[in-house]
């Protein structure tokens, strides 16, 4: 039986940031990783994917991007390199190739069963990420067998898709990025649009992430948003893409490129897809929300007295989906060869055999402190701060949770 005071499951940015903090506190621990460091970045992302945050914003405890393109957006191989180098320079106690099969609660800690034998620990940190599984909506059950069904976790590039057109369900970060690249590869693309968050890549001459950072938006804490926190945690991902050209991809640009926009997929029966008639409202809501963000940026600039440093305020074209959008599509007749479910992701906690879940299967936590003693979770959207699910957010959260873990260790020992 192997033992550590703390076990961290997952060697991505969250797990490594936590490891760094625990090492600084001299708390013995091990990081169990089913693959190599940065496994999800390495194996579960598509070929052309880049971060949608600029490189300077990849800041971890005691480490930061030191390359020659701080305003650029790292490719997946670069992210993997970045994190593996972090692991090495931290001398993080990572054990790779270890798959956790089950975690059980013990009297004063947890038993972690793995394919390399069992471990015991007093403290458990779940750093397995928020995107282990693609969430597939119920209409998927009606997809004809002839039409291929994929998630963004499986998709790699347009050439590997079956012949024919592609229907992408979902227009958040994954959906709009895939729509752009698959359309550019010459395929017919239809995107089903539900709730989404529209964002320009740049505003008044600066990257939108720079604004979110400097105005403090990314540091907003979960406990200052008591009323709205559950809604904030369920917000879809930003319609952003990282490209060297710093392009903005939104529904208008997709439509101009020839992508067909339809409403949310609400039914799929006998090969016929049904779309909601509420597309115009979803677009209006997204435009209003974006404008509120831009106004908050303008207000910040005015208060700071730095207006001269930035280009003047302006607004973007309202989303125009045309006067009428189609309400249904016969997939076979329309030559749709595959459907990509870009409808969100969720964590996989099937191995966690501890009663810490709510009636919808979500882990119960207070800012990352799970409802079981000595258990922590990391990397969930707005878990502790708006930036919790971003690379840049791992460090602050790890610092807070490591301090809590440490304090409770000492109290228990006394």
């Amino acid at each position: 039986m192997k033992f550590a005071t703390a076990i961290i499951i997952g060697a991505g940015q969250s797990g490594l940031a936590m490891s760094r903090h625990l090492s600084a506190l001299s708390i013995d621990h091990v990081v169990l990783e089913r693959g190599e460091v940065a496994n999800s970045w390495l194996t579960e992302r598509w070929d052309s994917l880049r971060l949608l945050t600029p490189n300077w914003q990849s800041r971890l405890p005691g480490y930061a991007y030191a390359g020659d393109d701080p305003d650029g957006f790292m490719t997946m191989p670069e992210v993997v390199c970045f994190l593996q180098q972090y692991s090495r320079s931290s001398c993080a106690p990572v054990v790779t190739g270890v798959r956790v099969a089950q975690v059980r609660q013990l009297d004063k800690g947890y038993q972690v069963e793995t394919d390399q034998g069992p471990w015991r620990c007093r403290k458990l940190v779940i750093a397995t990420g928020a995107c282990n599984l693609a969430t597939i909506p119920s209409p998927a059950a009606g997809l004809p067998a002839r039409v291929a069904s994929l998630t963004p976790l499986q998709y790699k590039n347009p050439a590997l898709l079956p012949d024919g057109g592609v229907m992408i369900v979902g227009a958040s970060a994954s959906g709009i990025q895939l729509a752009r690249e698959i359309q550019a590869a010459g395929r017919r693309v239809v995107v089903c649009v539900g709730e989404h968050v529209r964002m320009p890549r740049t505003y008044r001459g600066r990257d939108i992430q720079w604004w979110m950072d400097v105005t403090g938006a990314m540091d907003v804490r979960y406990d200052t948003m008591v009323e709205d926190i559950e809604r904030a945690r369920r917000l879809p991902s930003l319609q952003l893409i990282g490209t060297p050209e710093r392009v903005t991809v939104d529904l208008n640009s997709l439509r101009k490129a020839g992508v067909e926009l339809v409403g949310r997929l609400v039914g799929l029966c006998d090969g016929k897809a049904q779309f909601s008639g509420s597309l115009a409202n979803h677009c209006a809501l997204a435009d209003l929300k974006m404008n509120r963000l831009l106004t908050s940026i303008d207000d910040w600039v005015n208060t700071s007295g730095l207006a001269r440093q930035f280009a003047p305020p302006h607004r973007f074209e309202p989303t125009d989906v045309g006067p009428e959008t189609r309400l249904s599509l016969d997939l076979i007749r329309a030559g749709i060869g595959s459907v990509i479910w870009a409808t969100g992701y969720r964590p996989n906690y099937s191995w966690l055999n501890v009663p810490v879940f709510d009636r919808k299967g979500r882990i119960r936590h207070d800012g990352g402190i799970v409802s079981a003693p000595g258990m922590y979770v990391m990397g969930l959207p707005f878990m502790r701060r708006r930036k919790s699910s971003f690379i840049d957010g791992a460090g602050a959260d790890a610092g807070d949770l490591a301090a809590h873990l440490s304090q409770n260790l000492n109290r228990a020992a006394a």
Partner: protein
Amino acid sequence: MTTTTSVSAKIDNGVNVNALLDARTALEQAPEAAQFKWRASCEWVNGTHSRSAIGNFFGLGAEQSRNKTFTVDADHPQLFASEDNAPTPVELVLSGLASCLTAGVAAVAQRRGIQLHSVKASLEADMDIQGILGIDDEVRNGFGAIRVHFDIRADAKEDDIKALVAQSQKRSAVFDIVTNPTNVVVTVN
């Protein structure tokens, strides 16, 4: 010289938002109580004229009765060789949509502390009657499209008024019923 201090009048659109928020909190802990059943019964009068009666509904785990029964008549117009005793069913649907959205605007405005002065909605829906007359199979029976225009006077900026209408649609029952598929099961005798 007197200095007048402006007293901000309490925002009142007539919606008891606190009661709604309390209900929301309570139901979050008891989702079974959130299962409602709305009902209507209808009796044929003559020709295309019928009369609906609306009374009891089910909610919060129990039958809810009202101290009165509402009646709603429907008929077809003279252009349809009918007697025009009441609005057509499709016009009642437009009215239902308008009312649901309007009530939503009032509730959201109350919640957001915006004083409304007037809210008027005008609606228009296209219908190709080749559908209902069975002339052309490729024409649907229902509306081709519905257009709703809101004219709202309120103590708020234009974008905030637009946001009221957008939020109202987001949470509207009739908007959902009209824009998304709903199962209807009809049995006889």
